[in-house]
């Protein structure tokens, strides 16, 4: 497909400049592709560097641990020898039957009393049948009976952790289900994001490609970058809460989305979800706790209460709630 209109910007100069140029300048498809390739290369090389750093770290940790394990086993060896010496010091080396049997076996072997396979007696009590080079079977070794012990009677109780408590626990600990997976950004990923933007700018293409590489949403990556930048710039900031405001806004949005099915199913009269008598889609009234609308504290107080009522009365996770709400709508 030919491009009839002349390019507004010289493609070569844009590629060379490449640094934080306004992303609003319209470029043609070919140039976009060139940019994308360059950005990809930058990301790729940073990733290779991260891989190499990681390998180095793993090897270093393994070596440190190996030294620690060597110390541990040396210590254990020492303990086991001390135990032997302690017994020897107490007098007769063969003061227990195990040691005595050990010595008897050695003596039997010296005397040539070795049994070989094939001629095994068929008594039930005969413990071992040799199939190979032979064993020494001390004929004075009789099986020792362990007397029977009464077991506890089987006691049936109600299940301590039932389904919805388990759900609560899972959610609190962040073992969320597939859809709502919340992954924190790790150190190396932050570095890659920051350095990529430093090199090739902060255009949408950059965030798209980064998002693909890191398996996240572009808006997440962008929010993370902004959080990193503002954190760096706000060293003298007196309001530390604002540095992560971009991230918080994103999380708030997700909170709203997650809450929507619960809101739809909640019955204000019965205080349960999915009420059979009063139906769904009731208009909810949010309690106003303080006159300042910008205070973020007002909103969260409502949701956990709702959630705990919900989870106690109706065991469901967020995607299940969504599915139910969808069906009822």
């Amino acid at each position, binding site marked *: 497909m030919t491009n009839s209109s002349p390019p507004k910007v010289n493609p070569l100069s844009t590629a060379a400049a490449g640094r934080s140029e306004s992303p609003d300048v319209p470029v043609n498809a070919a140039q976009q592709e060139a940019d994308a390739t360059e950005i990809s290369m930058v990301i790729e090389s940073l990733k290779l560097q991260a*891989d190499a750093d*990681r390998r180095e770290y*793993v090897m270093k*940790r*393994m070596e440190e*641990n*190996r030294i620690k*394990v060597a*110390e*541990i*086993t040396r210590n*254990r*060896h020492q*303990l*086991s*020898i001390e*135990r*032997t010496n*302690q*017994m020897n010091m107490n007098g007769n080396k063969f003061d*227990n*039957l*195990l040691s005595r*049997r*050990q010595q008897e*076996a*050695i003596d*039997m*072997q010296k005397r040539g009393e070795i049994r070989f396979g094939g001629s095994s007696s068929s008594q039930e009590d005969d*413990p*071992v*049948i*040799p*199939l*190979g080079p032979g*064993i*020494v*079977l*001390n004929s004075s070794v009789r*099986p*020792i*009976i*362990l*007397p*029977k*012990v*009464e*077991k*506890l009677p089987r006691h049936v109780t109600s299940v*301590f*952790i039932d389904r919805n408590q*388990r759900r609560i626990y899972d959610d609190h*600990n962040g073992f969320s289900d597939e859809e709502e*997976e919340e992954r924190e950004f*790790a*150190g*190396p*990923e932050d570095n*890659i994001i920051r350095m990529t933007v430093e090199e090739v700018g902060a255009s949408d293409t950059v965030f798209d490609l980064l998002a693909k590489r*890191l398996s996240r949403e572009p808006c997440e990556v962008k929010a993370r970058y902004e959080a990193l930048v503002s954190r760096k710039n706000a060293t003298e900031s007196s309001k530390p809460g604002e540095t992560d405001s971009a991230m918080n806004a994103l999380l708030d949005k997700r909170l709203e989305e997650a809450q929507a099915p619960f809101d739809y199913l909640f019955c204000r009269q019965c205080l349960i979800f999915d009420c059979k008598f009063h139906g769904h889609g009731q208009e909810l009234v949010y309690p106003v706790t303080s006159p300042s609308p910008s205070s973020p504290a007002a909103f969260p107080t409502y949701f956990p209460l709702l959630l705990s009522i919900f989870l106690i009365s109706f065991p469901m996770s967020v995607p299940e709630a969504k599915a139910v709400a969808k069906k009822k709508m």
Partner: protein
Amino acid sequence: MTKITLGCEPAVGSLAPSKKRDYRVTNRLQEGKRPIYAVVFNFIDSRYYNVFATVGGNRVTVYQCLEGGVIAVLQSYIDEDKDESFYTVSWACDADGTPLLVAGGINGIIRVIDAGNEKIHKSFVGHGDSVNEIRTQALRPSLVLSASKDESVRLWNVQTGICILIFAGAGGHRNEVLSVDFHPSDIYRIASCGMDNTVKIWSMKEFWTYVERSFTWEELPSQFPTKYVQFPVLIASIHTNYVDCIRWLGDFILSKVNDCLIQSVDNEFILWEPKMKEQSPGEGTVDILQKYPVPECDIWFIKLSCDFHYNTAAIVGKISDDVDLEAYIIQATEKGKYLYGNCRLAPLLSLQGYLMSSPNLPSGKLPCRLTEAQYSVAVKTEPFGVGIQSQPHSL
């Protein structure tokens, strides 16, 4: 499920062996008609380095390795209850250094056998279901841990017969606990794993006074104030299926997941580092360092065995259908090194398959010299009542 972020991936080993190990089978023994579920050498007392115990059916047997590959049977204990089936055994000792054997199985009763005096020392009734694994604290061999199908882990004092702690409750396992291990140097820390796919790390620090009291308790054991530890210090969900074996390796954990139920998925060992936050227990991160693939194996509960120095580990390799499983004792040509072998097969499956420890485990490809088997033990299993006549195999 812990997601792995970029820049924090583990190194993955390969199944192709890099060196050929020099092992040979020196003997084969068959213990009656029962499956052998566990084999364990004594690492606690240097006099007994060449002594090992096996459990199978309702029997506990003690053997000794002699020169030239000859094996001696030293002692044999039988549970009067014919329906008992021991799953696990561990060596322990009391304050005088008398060797003890601690065995547990389907009855849920833990037998403490005084091997020095050839009699039963104590029987612990307490678990509500079968006992899957018993481990001894190497630094204090009167303390043992038991992992049970009743979803709890218990700490016992085998000398005084007291159940000191029970690790269960709100934060405990939600399914059978399959494996448990003491931290090698931190005496307060333990790790457990099970059929709820999680690994939990627990701390006994705030309960340690109870542990000390259990040694000096004068009254009846049943009057001891056994405490519940309900919350672990770290929960790791790095596996997607039953975690059937866990071992501490210094500060790292080696844990194995068994995807046999899903099938066609290679199982793997994962070597990872738990990073706990001292100030906030319950929070912490997991850093997965290495993964070792294990060839497909459709039996559960195959445990890992390590040698004394943790230089080597033996695991079970592929099972094929046409050969009988047998118990092997493989002696390294080098003397003076012994393997603590411990394998267990699920009683649910009886296979006429071949269970062999792979001598050619991958090493050399990985920075850690983890896998060389010096003594390896494979376990025999047969359907009950079938006579056994196996052909010798060359390895």
